């Protein structure tokens, strides 16, 4: 998709898969950043990374979060969020990646990346997309404790 977008010089807003199995690697993030050096109309990038916390709940420590999603509905909703965000903000591009399956504490589970000519659009869009992902996408986190019990994550 990135190659195609580069070739014809326009962003394609067709539904993209946002899901990655397991944690999102720092090297993947670096590659994603490096790919934007050819887009010399970009002046600012805003990135949000969600990281799994080793919360202690009732003396038990979270070892990992296991993510599941209603994938088809999530991708459909993400497509709407993407279209609305491009309509509202003057963005050059936007990339969203969310983990499925088990992500150990300390690892990255969410990567939102927006870019624009002037920083305000990228920053505001990134903030809004993160909030919308948390409230609108049918994704669930199951906090796995070190003793192999679990509890279902509740977003604040």
């Amino acid at each position, binding site marked *: 998709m990135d190659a195609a977008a580069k070739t014809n010089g326009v962003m394609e807003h067709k539904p993209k898969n946002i899901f990655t199995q397991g944690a999102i690697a720092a090297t993947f993030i670096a590659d994603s950043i490096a790919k934007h050096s050819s887009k010399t109309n970009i002046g600012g990038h805003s990135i949000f990374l969600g990281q799994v916390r080793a919360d202690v709940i009732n003396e038990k420590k979270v070892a990992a979060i296991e993510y599941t999603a209603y994938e088809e509905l999530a991708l459909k909703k993400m497509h709407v969020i993407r279209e609305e965000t491009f309509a509202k903000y003057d963005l050059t591009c936007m990339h969203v990646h969310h983990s499925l399956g088990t992500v150990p504490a300390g690892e990255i589970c969410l990567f939102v990346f927006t870019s624009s000519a002037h920083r305000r659009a990228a920053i505001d869009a990134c903030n809004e997309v993160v909030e919308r992902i948390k409230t609108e996408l049918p994704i669930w986190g199951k906090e796995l404790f070190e003793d192999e019990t679990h509890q*279902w994550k509740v977003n604040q």
Partner: protein
Amino acid sequence: MMRVEVLFFGKLVDIAGASLQMNNVRSTDELLEQLRLQYPALAAEKFMIAVDKKTISTNTSLTENCTVALLPPFSGG
């Protein structure tokens, strides 16, 4: 005989499993009534309902082979 696929997500999976098939339920209200008989623990849970990947807010008629999903509060990110 009308057949409906029911999907459960998040903590509802702990109560009812990931999915099941139900026969002869004509509406979401009818479906919920039957589910609550089968899984009394569902009564204490909050969830939204999606029929064929559209979230609904009122009682909705079901059609042959449609998919009903029970979605507890999201906790992605």
